[in-house]
Structures are given as C-alpha cells and as structure tokens.
C-alpha cells in the first residue's frame, strides 16, 4: 500500500519526463478520457461542486477504514486533474487525507489550475475531499 507522499512522488516523476506544456496537457487529457470516474447514480445535483465554468461531481464511500473517492467533470482537462487527485487521495485513511498537502500540483506544472480564482471547482473539490475525510475521521473516533 503506497502512502499519499509516495504516490505524489511517483506522479512528480512521471511529469518530469514531459518536455513542455503540450505533453503535460495531452497526458491529462488522455487520463481524463480513459477513466470512468463515477457511477452514474452518484452524478446527482447534491454531489456537484459548482465551479463557475466546469461542473465537478464527487462521491465518497468508507471501505473498512479507508475512503474511496470517485469523481467526474464535464470538462476533460478538469477530469484529468481529478483523475490525478483521486489517484493520490482515494483508498487512504482519513487522517492521511486530512494531513496531506497538495504542493505536488505546483511541481507538476499545473499550479494555474488550482488558483482559487480559476473558478473551475478544483480548489473546492480538494476542500470537499478533506471535508469528507474529517467527517469520516470523526466517525472513527
């Protein structure tokens, strides 16, 4: 079982091979296309994190002591970043998720997508992941 830090390091490694923004974006777009991220029944209004531009859905489930996240977006680049976030945060203990930082986003050259003013729902999405983790952590206590 990889820790959040190990997964982040792995992603930083993968992205370090890309030479320019085009390769990075193409990779994210491909990630976005590949992944069926969320069960259709969870793509509800309640699960929408409304950004100004693209919609983001998040669903969380507790499997034993780990949280499984699924998510989706109607914009493909957003979906690619979500795929990366899910890879980092899903199937982890709530406490690990609460304590994790997201500095790796900077290091893989996607900082602009996490600017709070970007209004694509991603900042809210990370907040939401952490909120779920806090809620489940409270239940475990």
């Amino acid at each position, binding site marked *: 079982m990889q820790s959040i830090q190990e997964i982040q390091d792995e992603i930083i490694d993968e992205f370090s091979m890309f030479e320019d*923004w*085009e390769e990075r*974006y*193409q990779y994210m*777009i491909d990630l976005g296309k590949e992944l069926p991220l969320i069960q259709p029944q969870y793509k509800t209004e309640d699960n929408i994190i409304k950004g*100004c*531009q*693209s*919609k983001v859905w998040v669903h969380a489930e507790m499997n034993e002591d780990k949280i499984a996240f699924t998510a989706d977006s*109607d*914009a*493909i*680049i*957003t979906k690619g970043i979500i795929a990366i976030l899910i890879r980092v945060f899903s199937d982890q203990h709530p406490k690990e998720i609460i304590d994790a930082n997201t500095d790796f986003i900077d290091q893989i050259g996607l900082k602009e*997508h996490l600017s709070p003013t970007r209004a*694509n729902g991603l900042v809210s999405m990370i907040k939401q992941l952490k909120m779920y983790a806090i809620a489940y952590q409270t239940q475990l206590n």
Partner: protein
Amino acid sequence: MNTTFNIHDIRKDFPILQRQVNGKPLVYFDNAATSQTPRQVIDVIVDYYTNYNANIHRGVHTLSQEATDKYEQARQTIQRHFNAKYVHEVIFTSGTTHSINLVANGFSALLEKGDEIIVSALEHHSNIVPWQMLCERTGAILKVIPMNQHGELEMDAYDALLSESTKLVFVNHISNALGTINPIKHIIDNAHQIGAAVLIDGAQACPHIKPDLQDLNVDFYVASAHKICGPTGVGILYGKEEWLNKLPPYQGGGEMIAEVTFEKTTYAGLPHKFEAGTPNICGGIAFGAALNYMNAIGFEAIADYENELLDYGTEKLSEIEGLKIYGTSKNKTSVISFNLEGIHPYDVGSILDKLGIAVRTGHHCAQPIMNYFNIPGTVRASFAFYNTKTEIDTLVEGVRKAKMMLS
C-alpha cells in the same frame, strides 16, 4: 493622436499589446469583458495623482479647484459624446451594474403590485437580478421578450407583451454573450406609446457605437468606462431630467445633500443627489480622456474596421469542422461566441491561454441564453479596433490545435 485609421499607429498606443503570455505574444480577444487602455488615458491617470489629486467640490484650495474643474469637464465630455440635453443628466456611478441598481432602487417607490416590467431573453445577469429583486419588493411582474435561434429578439412578441400595466422596459443595446444589436428604437418608441419608461444597457454598445441619446429619446442609458478604453470602477447613468427628479436618492452621505439638520435633510440638485460620498475622481477624468481618444479615431472608422475583423473571423472559424457559432444575426458587433462539437468551452479556453490567446469561456453571466441553446457555455472571442487579422489567424490556428488535442 490618430486622424486617420492606421492600425500600426493605434497598436503603439496600447503598451499591454507588447507583452508576452506563456511565452507567446499576447492576443487579446476578451474585449467585451474589458478593453485595454491606451497610453493617452494612462498618462491622464498618472498626471492626476502626480499633479492635482484632491477631493472635489468643497475645497477652497487650488488643487481641489483643479480636480473639480477636470472632473466636471469630463462630465461635459460625456454629455457631448452621448448628446445628452443637459450636463446634469449625466450621473457618475461605479459602472453599469451600479447604474442599473440605482434605477431599480428608485423605481421601488414608484411601482405598485400588478405593474409589469419587461426584460429581454438576451440580458446579462446584472440586468435580470436587480429587476427580480425589484419585483419581490413591489409585487410587480417580470415579463421576458423571447429570442429566436439567431439570438435576435422577437419584436412581435415584444409588442404583444406591452400593455397598460407595463411600467418599465429594460433591454441591452447589444448582447454581451452573442453580440446581437437589438432594435432599441422600436423598443423605445413602442414602450413610450403606452407610457412606459425604458432603460437601455449600453455597456456592450459603447465600444462600437456612439449613441445619440436625444435622438433615441431613451429615458435611461447606462455604460461602463472600462469597456471603452477607460479605467475600471467608473461608469454613468444617463437619465432624462424629469425621470431623475422623480427618483428618490439611492445612497445617503456627503456630496448629495443641500442642508442637514437632525430634523430634516434637503437633497442636492442633479446630478449630486445621486453622487453620495467621494466619487472616483481620477476615474471620471480618465473616462473623459478615453472618449476623447476614441472620438479622435472616430466611431465610424472603428465600426468599419471591426466589421471587417468580424467578417474575417466568422469566415475563418466557420471553416473548422464541428465549430458552431452562436449568435448569427446579420446585425451584430465583433463578438464570436462558439463551441467545438463535443468539447467543453473551458477546455478550449485553457489550451488557447497556453498559446497566449485571451478569450472568455463560460456562460458570460447570461445563463438564460445558454439554457436556450442547451449548452454549458461558449468560447467568446471579442475583437476591438486594435486587433488584427493576423491575430485572428493565430486564434484559428489555436482552435484547430485545441480541437486536435481534445478530440
């Protein structure tokens, strides 16, 4: 200053056009959101803070007098530009949204339950929400002029909506999301026949058209400086004298009073009745400078050139397979709102940004229009008189690249 239209010289007036974005020369096609500022206007702003920054109207000292004179000269420039009958019909505000709210607030004292307000299906949220709030306060009813698939308002439907209950009509001169030029003369004349007042939102029109407010015979007209080469945070409310006298003051404070005792306050006359507090003095002066700059180039020359850009851009973008343009009225300004089939506008905008091309993506604060077309939003490229066909080529190339990467 330019006396004939020379794009090479005009571009030199705008320092920002020299900058690079993401390692590429900036291509600025978000002009419908805000226009860029020429050196001539920037110089006026610097001159104000360097040489005569002071509070206006009440000071006996020289700086205050100079600032007051320049501010009031700017008001006269604006009056002449819009051909308002009186200079006191020009109220400085913080911008179009503020102007609309000022009128909406004033009308809450004049409306009764069952009165009707008409807006159009093409409105910006800032021209929908204040009226909804006004209806909630007064019990008035909001009616909507529908649009057709070209993004044009249906004038037969409008005429049918007009009745003795209609008290106010609010329509934008030009749609921000689609660029459609609305038949405001028809709208104004027919509203007046049944005694209703008309407010026209000129925010999108003023960069392209020089409206003659007396000829239009409009009751209220609103605009923002930052879309006409001026600074942000300043705009105007034009109102016919008789209407401005009928409306109660919007905000209380300094500047808007004649005499204050604890028993009673008497209000200042127009325009100061609506200008509570210290205004955006520098902004107002720079607004005047921006109008002078654009008038020196000439609005006819600007419109001719922008139409050329619009035709060229429409033709070139239409050649891209799977690209659909929203807003196809023959009567429109240099705004192209479009989508690539099956691709989210946000994704297209993100790729274009990487290429140094600034466009707007999203619902453009006009969700009812997006709902009509059943789309989450569009990519909107809006051209100004300082843009070029070469820049449009860069956009077209960028859209092709985005399509290739995202399909």
